[in-house]
């Protein structure tokens, strides 16, 4: 049982590792007349929405710039909007953010040396948990099998004697 708990614990840690997107609302706040005017173009708006959900707001760090209503998030949305209008590609826009704020702005940071633990950690923890589970189950089976042996002749006669003692006369 203890080992099983350890496994559950390991899986829990794995599930809460960074990289998990936060589920709370993707409400998009329209904050000025210019934004509303630009929003008239649904294709551009969709790209903005998609890009904004990939970018972290550095002020309220657990929110994307789509979710956040911080001043900086508004400014960054404005920048993204301008770049979309200027015909920049998604990659150019993301690079613009990364050169200024680093990989930290990306909700999905690139796989590289320094982020290996981030990406590999959950998988490694799950494998560790599975390994522990497998070992536990195997030991348990051997233990049960060992206990399941039929009684030896000596044990049987002792059991008989005990039963007889308890039999009412």
């Amino acid at each position, binding site marked *: 049982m203890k080992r099983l708990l350890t496994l559950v614990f390991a899986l829990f840690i794995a599930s809460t590792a960074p990289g998990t997107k936060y589920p709370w609302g993707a409400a998009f706040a329209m904050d000025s007349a210019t934004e509303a005017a630009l929003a008239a173009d649904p294709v551009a708006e969709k790209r903005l929405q998609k890009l904004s959900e990939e970018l972290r707001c*550095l*002020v309220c760090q657990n929110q994307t710039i789509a979710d956040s209503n911080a001043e900086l998030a508004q400014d960054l949305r404005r920048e993204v909007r301008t770049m979309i209008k200027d015909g920049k590609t998604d990659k150019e826009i993301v690079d613009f953010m990364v050169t200024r*704020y680093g990989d930290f702005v990306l909700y999905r940071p690139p796989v590289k040396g320094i982020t290996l633990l981030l990406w590999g950690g959950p998988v490694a923890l799950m494998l560790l948990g599975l390994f522990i589970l497998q070992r536990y189950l195997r030991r348990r089976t051997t233990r049960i099998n060992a206990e399941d042996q039929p009684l030896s002749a000596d044990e049987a006669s002792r059991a008989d004697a005990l039963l007889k003692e308890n039999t009412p006369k």
Partner: protein
Amino acid sequence: MNRYYWILGAFAALVALLAIGLNLNPRDVPSPLVGKPAPAFNLNVLAKPETTLGPKDMQGKVWLLNVWASWCVSCRQEHPVLVEFSKKVNVPLIGLNYKEVRGDGGFDMSKMAADEEKKLAFERANKWLADHGDPYTLTVMDLDGRVGIDYGVYGVPETYVIDKAGLIRMKHTGPITPEVLGKKIMPLLAELNK
């Protein structure tokens, strides 16, 4: 008994991990700009609005760029340290006033004309420096925060150390404490000015 030690060990490891993790400062995001040229700008100077200043004017000097605003509470905390610094150290300290009016949050920007914003920003910045002392060699005005974005500003105050070649050598986010100044900034300035 053995398995209890095992769980205890795993728990201790988790506590250690969390203790380290929770003691890290999440605001301390490493800036990708360190080692890169300071992004160019050309902004109006607070004291002489008809003139402009940019990093290329500072070429050949080691200088500090300090991002501030009158609405920024932590700037108030850091300000005496900067005033003291400017009296003692002969290193240019350029102020970058960041979104003086629109960053305040108390104004409806959709109702304010650009001229009006500019006038108000200069007034407010001048008054703040008059009240609290002016440690800056010069202050430039980033009214819309566009330059701030180029510098990756996300929490005022922020301070950059820029070398003679115009490369950013250090970025400090948050107020400068005497400790940060003495242990990090001063040694770096001395080394860069060698």
